[in-house]
Each structure stands twice: as structure tokens, then as C-alpha cells.
């Protein structure tokens, strides 16, 4: 166990030097192209916000089901098949057919080429599960139909969230899918998450609807309240124009009234629709509705045909900017709820870094002093192994651009404390061996050999704990498992290559001395 070939000595040295260089590049800026990676600091250390958003798909599902009813009606009408008594009960579409059409309807709905109930060969499932009871049919989203719906609404939502976050302009936001109805947003360095939170909390569904004068609208009416809560108005359900047709929006100053407004421009289709509606509706009040609340309801004085307009309301410059931003980035397919938020201010992050480094330094020093006190020359060897262990650990974390969190720093300190264990096991074993074996080289060799299985056993148990923590833990705790797990690997390397190399050099040189250890 004590023999090292030249090649091996050189590779150990090269390996250690390279990783120490990686480690140091975090603290000293070497100006080179060779290596430019850094350890990422977790949100708990650099400050920032972690937001977990959950999409509320219920409105989307209802919307899709309603659209489906219309589609079914139209489709079967074309086929000259009578369906009647359509209704939506919970998430189930119900309808009836005549007795002699039952088979026909069933075949259409369960056909793999069906136009109204798409079949997904990869999932071996239709979009809807069809049940029939006599002439009563009920349609429910199948498991995969629901998964696909949720996925597509999540993809859409992520896109919108990304646009909104980018518009605010934070540095390196991290936006990730979590499961099929959650979005994780990490915003490093963000001091005040309130603005982003309120931007992400809005669906931003913009519609233009006429305020109805009489209650005899063909599309039906709904009662909506004004944004400021002052009053209600009866609004026609007919949507003149929606936010989808907007191509741009920005806050501007209206020079006549001297108030802040949001001016918008429309795409071609939107401009045409808007022009047509405003020319027939001169004199009517047009309600501008955002997420079910009326922002304002100006009277149409003349047809607006240019494809641009203004939204007034009691805006401050900030709220006009935010509304413009929301309109530019588009509406979310469904409302998002913030179900978890963790925000750390930048000064607390810095305090944590300082405390972490201080405790690492002190813990390291205490362990080093204790080892020298216990083992003298061999304590020094163990300490050299410990120092290189620390460099290797930080070097590897840098190489993989791992995220260092406060618990991660604790993991490094803990590694320092536990890393000496392997060397202690070896040294204690050597001590025992020297009692019966006068030749130090043989005794040292035996010490290394006989302690090996124990060391492996002991480290594998900790590695198991680290592994499980890595797969089950989240955020900062995951950082702990990474440093703990990588720390075990670097410990084994530093003990079996670095410390053993130094020990063998020392023993061969001093083999004639009495009582080496």
C-alpha cells in the first residue's frame, strides 16, 4: 500500500494543482481564457427571491369544455345527427341523442380518426373518455387529455411569465417547470420582489365591451364593478376586442388632460374590428375590462379607425408602466397563485456569507490544531490532506458550477470535521500494528490494508444519506447534500492518494527512527 509509481505521484500532484486552481479562481481573478467558471451562490447567500407559482387550471378547463360543446353541436349538425339537451355538469359534458343514432354517435366519438375526440396513439387514449347510458352520453377529459391540456397551459404560462420577468429586467432569472401545474421562478439579486409578485399575480385579460343601455343584448349581459370599487355597470358579453390583438402598449402623457394614460396599437385584424365596432357604437360607452374589473368606460365620440387608442384611468406613472408591460407580454392562460415564497435581502445574504466563512475558518483551525496536538508529524500530513481536500471540494464544485448555499457551507465545515476520520482510523490501526511488527514499513502497510474496508463502510453510509437528501431535498438543503456527498469523494481521494503518498515518503525516509507514530 505504500508504493507509489512516479507516474502516479505526478498525476496526483497535477490533479490536485488543477483543482486548487479551479478553487482559487473563485477568489482571485486570473485573467485567462482557460477557466472562467465560478461557484454559483444560492439565493440565501446572494439575496433574491424564490417563487413557486401554481397555475389554477379550473377556468381553462371550463372554457375548453364550453368550446367543445359548441364544436360538437356544429359538427353533428353538419352530419345531420340530432343531439339535444347539452349541459355542463362539473367537468362533464352531457347530451342526449335519439335512439337510432346511438351507435352512430358512439362510433364517431370512439373512432381513432375522430375529428371531435382526438386520439393520441402515443398514449393509446382519446382526449375524452366517452360513457353512454341509453341515449345519454357523457364526456370527460381522459387522464392524458387532462395532462396534455395542463401541459399546454403551463407552457403558455411559462412563456408569459418569462416575458414579464424579462421586461422588468432582473439579472439571470431562472424560470423552470415543476410538475404539470407549477412554475419555479428564481430571481437572484432582487431586492424587492413586490413588483414582480404583483405583475405575476395578474392574468391580464384585457377586453373591450360596450356598456349596455338596455338589458336586451343578444349576447347577454354581465354585471362588472369598476376597478376602484366605486360602482357597478351592466356590460354586454359581446367582446369587441381582446388583448390578443394588441401589438404594443406604452405609458404616455395625454397632453390635453395632463394625465398618464396607456396608449396601445392594434394589429390589422384588431384595427378592423375596433374600427367597425366604434363606428356603429358612436355615443355608447366602451368599457375597458381587465381581469373582470372595469378600468374605465369612456364614451365613443367618433369611430377609431387608425388602429391605436388610449386607456385612461386613475394611473400613476408606475401603474401605467405596469399595465403597459402586462399588455405587451400578453395574458396568462389561467390565474397563477404564489404558493411558496422565499426572499432574502442582499445584506442578510452577505451576513450569511461572512458568518459561513468565519465559521469555516475557525472550525478548520480548531481541527488542524487538534490533529497536530494528537499526531505531530502525522497530524501535519493529515492536515495537508485536509487542506487539499478543501481545495479539491471547492474546485469540483466550481468545475460543475454547483450552487453554494448556507447549508452547503455547513456541509463543507462538516466535511472538514469528518474528513480526518479516515486518517485517524488508519493512524490508530498503524499504532496497533507497530506493537507486533518492528519493521515500520510493514506495519504501515498493514495499517492501511486492514483499515480499508472499515473506511469504505463508514463513508458509504454517509454517502447514502447524502444521496437521499439530494433526491428528496429542495433548494438550500440540496446544496448541503451536494457538498456533503462530493466532500466524501474528495476525502477518500485526499486520504488514499495525498496523505498516503506523504506518509510513504515520510516513513521511507525515517524508517530507522524509534516509534514513528
Amino acid at each position, binding site marked *: 500500500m505504500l508504493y507509489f509509481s512516479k507516474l502516479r505521484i505526478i498525476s496526483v500532484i497535477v490533479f490536485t494543482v488543477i483543482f486548487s486552481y479551479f478553487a482559487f479562481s473563485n477568489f482571485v481573478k486570473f485573467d485567462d481564457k482557460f477557466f472562467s467558471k465560478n461557484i454559483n451562490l444560492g439565493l*440565501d447567500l446572494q439575496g433574491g427571491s424564490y417563487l413557486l407559482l401554481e397555475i389554477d387550471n379550473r377556468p381553462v378547463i371550463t372554457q375548453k369544455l364550453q368550446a367543445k360543446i359548441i364544436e360538437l353541436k356544429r359538427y353533428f349538425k353538419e352530419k345531420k345527427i340530432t343531439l339535444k339537451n347539452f349541459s355542463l355538469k362539473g367537468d362533464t359534458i352531457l347530451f342526449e341523442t335519439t335512439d337510432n343514432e346511438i351507435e352512430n354517435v358512439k362510433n364517431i366519438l370512439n373512432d381513432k380518426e375522430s375529428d371531435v375526440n382526438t386520439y393520441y396513439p402515443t398514449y393509446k387514449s382519446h382526449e375524452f373518455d366517452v360513457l353512454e347510458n341509453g341515449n345519454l352520453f357523457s364526456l370527460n377529459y381522459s387522464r392524458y387529455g387532462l395532462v396534455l391540456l395542463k401541459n399546454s397551459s403551463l407552457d403558455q404560462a411559462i412563456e408569459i411569465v418569462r416575458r414579464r420577468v424579462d421586461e422588468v429586467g432582473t439579472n439571470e432569472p431562472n424560470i423552470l417547470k415543476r410538475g404539470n401545474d407549477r412554475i419555479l421562478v428564481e430571481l437572484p439579486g432582487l431586492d424587492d420582489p*413586490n413588483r414582480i*409578485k*404583483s405583475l*405575476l*399575480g395578474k392574468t391580464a385579460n384585457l377586453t373591450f365591451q360596450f356598456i349596455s343601455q338596455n338589458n336586451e343584448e343578444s349576447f347577454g349581459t354581465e354585471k362588472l364593478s369598476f376597478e376602484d370599487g366605486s360602482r357597478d355597470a351592466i356590460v354586454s358579453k359581446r367582446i369587441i376586442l381582446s388583448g390578443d390583438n394588441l401589438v404594443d402598449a406604452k405609458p404616455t402623457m395625454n397632453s390635453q388632460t395632463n394625465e398618464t394614460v396607456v396608449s396601445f396599437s392594434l394589429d390589422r385584424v384588431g384595427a378592423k374590428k375596433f374600427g367597425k365596432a366604434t363606428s356603429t357604437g358612436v355615443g355608447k360607452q366602451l368599457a375597458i375590462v381587465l381581469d373582470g374589473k372595469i378600468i374605465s368606460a369612456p364614451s365613443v365620440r367618433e369611430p377609431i379607425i387608425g388602429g391605436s387608442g388610449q386607456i385612461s384611468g386613475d394611473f400613476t406613472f408606475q401603474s401605467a408602466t405596469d399595465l403597459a408591460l402586462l399588455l405587451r407580454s400578453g395574458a396568462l392562460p389561467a390565474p397563477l*397563485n404564489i*404558493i*411558496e*415564497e*422565499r*426572499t*432574502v*435581502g442582499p*445584506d*442578510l445574504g452577505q451576513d*450569511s456569507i461572512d*458568518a*459561513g466563512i*468565519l*465559521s469555516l475558518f*475557525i*472550525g478548520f483551525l*480548531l*481541527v488542524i490544531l*487538534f490533529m497536530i496536538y494528537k499526531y505531530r508529524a502525522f497530524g501535519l500530513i493529515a492536515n495537508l490532506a485536509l487542506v487539499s481536500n478543501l481545495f479539491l471540494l471547492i474546485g469540483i464544485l466550481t468545475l460543475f458550477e454547483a450552487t453554494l448555499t*448556507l*447549508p452547503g457551507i*455547513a456541509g463543507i*465545515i*462538516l466535511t*472538514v*470535521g*469528518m474528513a*480526518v*476520520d479516515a486518517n*485517524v*482510523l488508519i493512524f*490508530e490501526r498503524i499504532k*496497533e500494528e507497530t506493537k507486533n511488527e518492528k519493521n515500520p514499513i510493514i506495519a504501515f502497510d498493514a495499517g492501511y490494508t486492514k483499515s480499508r474496508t*472499515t473506511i469504505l*463502510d*463508514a*463513508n*458509504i*453510509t*454517509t454517502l*447514502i*444519506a*447524502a444521496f*437521499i*437528501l439530494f433526491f*428528496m431535498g*429542495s*433548494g*438550500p*438543503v440540496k446544496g*448541503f*447534500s451536494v457538498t*456533503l456527498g462530493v466532500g466524501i469523494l474528495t476525502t477518500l481521494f485526499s486520504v488514499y492518494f495525498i496523505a498516503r503518498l506523504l506518509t510513504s515518503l515520510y516513513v521511507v525516509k525515517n524508517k530507522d527512527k524509534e516509534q514513528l507514530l
Partner: protein
Amino acid sequence: MRNISFNKFYRKFNILSLVLIVISLVFLIFKGLNYGVDFKGGTLIELRTSDKTNNISLIRDSFNQMNLGDVSVKKFGNETDFIVKFEKQNSNDPEFIKNIQNKLSSSIGDVDFRRVENVGPKVSSELLKSGIIAISLSLAAMLLYIWIRFEWQFSLGAILAIFHDVIITLGIFSIFSLEINLSIVAAVLTIVGYSMNDTVVIFDRVRENLRKFSDIKIFDLTNISINETLSRTIITSVTTLLALLSIYLFGGEILKGFSLAMILGVIFGTYSSIYIANPILVALNVSQRTIVKEEKD
């Protein structure tokens, strides 16, 4: 090598452990654990006031006026730093935290929210579930590993030792109402690993000695093995404790609970390797035949 008769006290310490476990279980069952917002849901705010005359009761009063459910206020390190926890968390109102900060500033002067954690009920129950799964999974993995490496008598000893450490550590957290959060789960998992590590080292020696000496009874054999590995046990525990103590004292308030759990775990883990794991080998009457028979199979 020292020669301390650890085995003379097997019975006494076993009774002590049993008493500690019973007390811990009674507390865990009847008083329960003090879950933090990670597992209970709610809001945590670490705040720093600009006015040094602000005290806990003043801050609590201001929060109580805001109708946020059960409010708890604690000092956190500096005299201007406080941790406030309350039940309410409002995911549908993005202005929730901002409003609290505004109200607070008007009643007690400028406050800086250094840290905000807001966990909804769904997330907290998921976190609790995954925490419990993680700990159970790690126990199962340890059991499996040691079952492969050793005979079943040893596995039983090691697993009981781990249970002992985890139950007593959690018991102490329950008795003193210390907060259980995500980092405590990490600490418990590390304790499991450490306790196992410590036990395995002694067991490896016991097994080696079982092969070497056929005429020594397991009662004395465990004692020899404990003594032979004693200096390693002490040195490793000391260095680990030195590192942990450094985290506890200098690592900042956030790591206090984590390092305390670890310190307790290391102390009980070291103790249990000697006084739980080994007496079980004695009770199961492990002999040379136990391992020879296994090895023949």
C-alpha cells in the same frame, strides 16, 4: 491501549437509554414537534428595526392588530433583529407583505425585512411528506447496506442505535420546543449517516475479533473491540464536534438549529455505538459460529 470496562455498565446505560426514549416518545406523542413554516405553512419574517427601543411585546402588539392569526415574535441574534411568524399566508394577494411592511413602519418606525418566507398549506404538507419519506428511505437504505455487509444481529444493533439517536434528538427538540424546519431534516439524515458510520467501525472490529478469538465471550469481546477503537471514536467525535461548534457559535442564527441538532446527534451517535449497538450483540448471543456459519453459506 486503554482498558475501560464499558461492559460493566451495559445494563445501567441501557436502562438510562430506555428512560430517555420513553420520555422522548411521550413528548413527541403528547406535545409534538414545533414545526416551522416549512412544514406548518404560514409566513416568517426576519426583520431589523431602526429603532433600538423596539422590543418583542411592542412588535407583537403591532402584528396582533393586523389580524394575521397566531403571531410569535422572537429575538434573532442582534438586539434589533427579530423573527416573526404567523399563521396567515396569502398567495392570492401579491401586496400582502408590502401592506404588512407599510403598517409596521407606521407603528414602530422604519423596518427592513431581511428575509421573508411564505409557504402555502399545500406546499408545507408536501414538504413534510417528502421529509418523512427521506428519513424513512435513508433508514431503509442503511438497513439494506448493513444487511448486505454484516449478519442480521449486527444490522439489528445498528438500526436500533440509529432509532435511539433520532428519537432522542427529536425528543429534545420537542421538550425545548425548538423549531423543526427543512434544515433539521438534513441534520437528522446526517445524524443517521454519522451514527451508522460510528457503529460500523466498532462492528468491523468486533467481527475481526470474533474470527481471531474463539474462546472469548461476546460480553468481553465487545469490550475489547470498543477499547481498541476508542481513541478513533474520541478523536473523530472531537473533530466533528469542533467543526459543528464553530458553526453553532459563528455560523449565524440561521444555522443554529441545524448545528444544534447535529451536535446532539453526534453525542448520542457516539454513545449509542457503544451502549446500544454492542449490548444488542451480547443479548443476541453472537459468537464465532454466527459469522462462520454465514460465511460458509
